[in-house]
């Protein structure tokens, strides 16, 4: 049996990483989207020469600046955590992560920092066109920075383009392009950035609606709503498309996550999609937190099969099929994967012992076996399963994954409706007469943040117990340090980030109240 870290340490390490990542994601999506909205507004200024567009551009640029400044470098803390709390993981994936993170750092520094300086300091100092170019490059640079982080994340969800080196205990990249263009990475980037576009559009519409409610900054509000509604509508339709694609990739590569996000325990052909559902305790095993029944559900027949495999009658495996296996459809039982994983770990252990004992002949023979295509395919592919004894531990938190997924999807469709109505009302000139809608637009701002966070919960909780799909479980990834020290830094971060968030909100609210005149 493999020794694992204690549950408290794993839980606190996870909580700390989740807290840091979730706070970081409060600042990032607005930057990703609002930079494009600002670039469109400034393009209108340069094209038309109308000073009102310059005033509008500068106002939203101010709010972007506050958000960017408060959020800057919050992501670096995640890298601190890799080295301190997730050292086994960092070592295991080091060579794969090194390249994307280095590119991200260089891009973020040179593109964003340089062009942001021109955006803020360059009015009347560089030509209009140079300034506009800097604004566009800031938007493009921010989104390209996100690409590299999401490529790294995509690799964790679907490890490709690497070879495990038993000598160094590291995965080494052997195909950069396979890592960069993995379907999971591409889906992640497109879906995460387009969610940022939607959030920023909701943000602009919501604040503009507040001005209209207060009967202030009418021109700014109406023009901003027009730009944001068009951008938001296009982005939200694109968001649904990228989400749909992403779901299909998950159905193929992370079928346990897919089953969890739909709360599907027993697979079937022509599986229905649960559009809305409420879980209750299972009658068969009420004590099992992960085993649930639906107390009510609204199901669309055959839709899940189509969503997953573009075939109305395709078989979609449920959690029980993946745990117990399903011979008819070719799903291996989890116990078999666990056995194969244990063989892979044992073989790696034998290699390590042979090296330590100086038995080079045996070590070389074991290395040849470990790196052979047959062993990789039959055993190493299941390496991470070897850390488990109970197949039930392979099931993620089903209710949390299910509810987060459904909150995200329902809010996504709500935003499409919001953009359609915003566009309709602003074109008809009735936006400022519909007080209920203006209030709804303001309420939509926190909802957009909730949708984004829910999306990350689906992505990260749904793939548990893995940090690297099938290869490394969370419990093997953590550094064996004291749970108490992780707890201390958790609370330190909670305080630090909360103070930062309060500071952002205070400065942002004050600037919104001041408005564009000052």
């Amino acid at each position, binding site marked *: 049996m493999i020794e694992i870290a204690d549950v408290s340490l794993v839980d606190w390490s996870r909580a700390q990483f989740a807290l840091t990542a979730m706070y970081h994601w409060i600042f990032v999506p607005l930057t990703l989207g609002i930079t494009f909205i600002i670039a469109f507004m400034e393009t209108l200024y340069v094209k038309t020469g109308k000073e009102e567009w310059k005033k509008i551009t500068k106002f939203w640029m101010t709010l972007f600046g506050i958000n960017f400044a408060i959020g800057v470098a919050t992501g670096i803390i995640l890298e601190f955590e890799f080295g301190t709390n997730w050292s086994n993981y960092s070592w295991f994936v080091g060579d794969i992560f090194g390249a994307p993170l280095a590119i991200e750092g260089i891009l973020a520094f040179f593109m964003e920092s340089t062009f942001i300086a021109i955006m803020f*300091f*360059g009015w009347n100092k560089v030509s209009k066109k140079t300034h506009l170019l800097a604004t566009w490059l800031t938007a493009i640079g921010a989104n390209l920075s996100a690409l590299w982080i999401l490529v790294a994340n995509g690799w964790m969800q679907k490890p490709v383009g690497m070879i495990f080196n038993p000598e160094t205990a590291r995965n080494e990249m052997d195909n950069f392009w396979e890592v960069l263009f993995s379907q999971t990475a591409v889906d992640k980037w497109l879906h995460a950035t387009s969610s940022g576009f939607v959030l920023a559009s909701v943000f602009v519409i919501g604040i503009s609606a507040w001005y209209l409610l207060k009967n202030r900054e009418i021109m700014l509000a109406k023009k901003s709503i027009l730009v944001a509604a068009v951008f938001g509508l296009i982005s939200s339709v694109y968001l649904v498309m990228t989400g749909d694609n992403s779901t299909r990739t998950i159905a193929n590569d992370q079928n346990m996550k897919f089953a969890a996000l739909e709360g599907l325990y027993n697979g079937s052909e022509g599986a229905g999609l649960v559009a809305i559902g409420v879980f209750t305790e299972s009658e068969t095993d009420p004590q099992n937190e992960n085993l649930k029944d639906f107390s009510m559900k609204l199901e669309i027949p055959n839709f899940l099969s189509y969503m997953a495999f573009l075939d109305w009658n395709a078989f979609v495996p449920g959690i029980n099929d993946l745990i117990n296996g399903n011979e008819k459809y070719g799903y291996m039982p989890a116990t078999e994967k666990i056995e194969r994983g244990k063989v892979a770990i044992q073989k790696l252990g034998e290699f*390590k012992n042979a090296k330590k004992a100086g038995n080079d002949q045996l070590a070389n023979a074991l290395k040849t076996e470990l790196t052979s295509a047959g062993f990789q395919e039959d055993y190493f592919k299941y390496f991470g399963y070897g850390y488990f004894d109970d197949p039930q531990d392979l099931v993620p938190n089903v209710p949390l994954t299910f509810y987060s997924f459904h909150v995200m999807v329902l809010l996504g469709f709500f935003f499409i409706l919001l953009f359609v109505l915003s566009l309709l009302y602003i074109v008809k000139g009735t936006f400022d007469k519909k007080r209920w809608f203006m209030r709804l637009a303001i309420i939509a701002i926190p909802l957009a943040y909730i949708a984004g966070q829910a999306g990350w919960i689906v992505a990260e909780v749904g793939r548990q117990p893995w940090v690297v799909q099938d290869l490394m479980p969370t419990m093997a990834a953590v550094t064996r340090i004291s749970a108490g020290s992780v707890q201390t830094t958790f609370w330190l971060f909670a305080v630090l980030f909360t103070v930062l968030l309060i500071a952002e909100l205070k400065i942002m609210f004050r600037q919104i109240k001041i408005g564009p005149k000052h």
Partner: protein
Amino acid sequence: MNRQNILLRIWKFYISGFKNMSNWGRQVWLIILVKLFIMFVILRIFFFPDFLKSNFDTDKERSEHVLDVLTKSK
């Protein structure tokens, strides 16, 4: 235009930008500096040492440690 001239212009561009910064700009810069100080001077040094770098001297030792952890039996 020679290289020195360009560097001087860039320098002046930043200096003038910072000098003429708005009130909110000064506030967020203060927050950025305090945050970076807390992150890199306090958190990084006292709370977030790199475990493998600070406990092992060579990559070989680090590899061996990770291999030990990944293959250790109860």
